[in-house]
């Protein structure tokens, strides 16, 4: 009987001490949230544009971390973001599926705008100004060209235009890139 009590007592004590040690270790190795989701989220441009097919950057980061999504869906982030995410996840980089389009910017035909504010609510980067029953307009330098405002507009008065290249930011395009081809096309048109 004596032996039984020592056995129970010693095991309980041993378990208790191990538990306390583990609890102390937990404090030292505390992980806040899922670090890999945070890391991917930090790489994304945070435009919350939804072009990846997920409702925002954080959900896309979660999907990539859980391997539910490929690394190449972030269009605003471009190739650099894709390479960084592929490197972080340890997977092969993938070509970004993007048509040969230039950076776009939305444009509101103001004489047709009825001032419904629906596009303002849908803009992920707050690049539309306006008030109810007033014309809305787009702040071109903040627009990411995500096209999310096109659908809610009840009178279809929003166009997507090719973003004008500002002189102070202009640089030679990389050979073979979309921008280079576009410039080439423009030149041909100009000389035709």
């Amino acid at each position, binding site marked *: 009987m004596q*032996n039984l009590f*020592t*056995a129970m007592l*010693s*095991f309980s004590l*041993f*378990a208790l001490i*191990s538990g306390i*040690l*583990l609890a102390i*270790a*937990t404090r030292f*190795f*505390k*992980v806040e949230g*899922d*670090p*890999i989701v945070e*890391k991917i989220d930090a790489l994304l441009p945070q435009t919350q544009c939804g072009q990846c097919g997920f409702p925002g950057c954080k959900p896309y980061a979660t999907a990539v*971390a859980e391997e539910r999504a490929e690394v190449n869906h972030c269009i605003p982030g471009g190739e650099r973001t894709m390479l960084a995410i592929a490197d*972080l*996840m*340890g997977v092969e980089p993938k070509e970004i599926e993007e048509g040969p389009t230039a950076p776009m910017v939305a444009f509101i035909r103001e004489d047709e705008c009825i001032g419904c504010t629906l596009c303002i609510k849908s803009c992920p980067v707050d690049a539309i100004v306006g008030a109810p029953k007033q014309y809305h307009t787009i702040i071109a330098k903040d627009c990411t060209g995500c096209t999310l405002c096109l659908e809610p507009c009840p009178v279809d008065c929003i166009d997507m235009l090719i973003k004008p290249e500002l002189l102070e930011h202009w640089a030679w395009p990389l050979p073979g890139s979309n921008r280079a081809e576009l410039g080439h096309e423009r030149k041909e048109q100009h000389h035709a």
Partner: protein
Amino acid sequence: MYEFAVILLSTILVNNYVLAKFLGICPFLGVSGKVETAIGMSFAVMFVMTLASTASWLVQQYILIPLDILYLQTIFFILIIAVLVQFIEMMIHKTSPVLYQGLGIFLPLITTNCAVLGVALLNIQHDHGLFTSAFYGLGAAIGFGLVLILFAGLRERLDGAPTPKAFKGSPLTLITAGMMSLAFMGFSGLVKF
């Protein structure tokens, strides 16, 4: 010194825990898909096995024998292993989230890796001393890691090989494991320990 060398040689090659004693087969087959995860798993097991064999020896000598409760040996050892695994899980989660994700369920399953408990129990059965126990655990873990990494390498290469459809996946994995075990039988004449 000579004794330790023999222990290492014996546990790594001759009495390899996976291929000669057939312990720890579950992670051997489960985590051997990619070399990178296999390396991570090897280091995790190395940490757990070495510390578990040392700690279990101490518990055996200073708790179980003095209190005459040897019948609690298994549950004490499992508790030690579980605590160590919990600890390394926290450590990996903090330091390398990618590895943590790669190891997945197999990381907590080191707790039930029979090779770890096997090493602890065999240490007691063979009447090893403290340092011998630690070295035996380290050797067993290195042996496990070596075989796991080699096997992962083989599997990575076989993935690209034109194998018959019926052999794809698990059958080929099991056949490869069997052949590796046969190959390691070649070491059996090397040392007697």
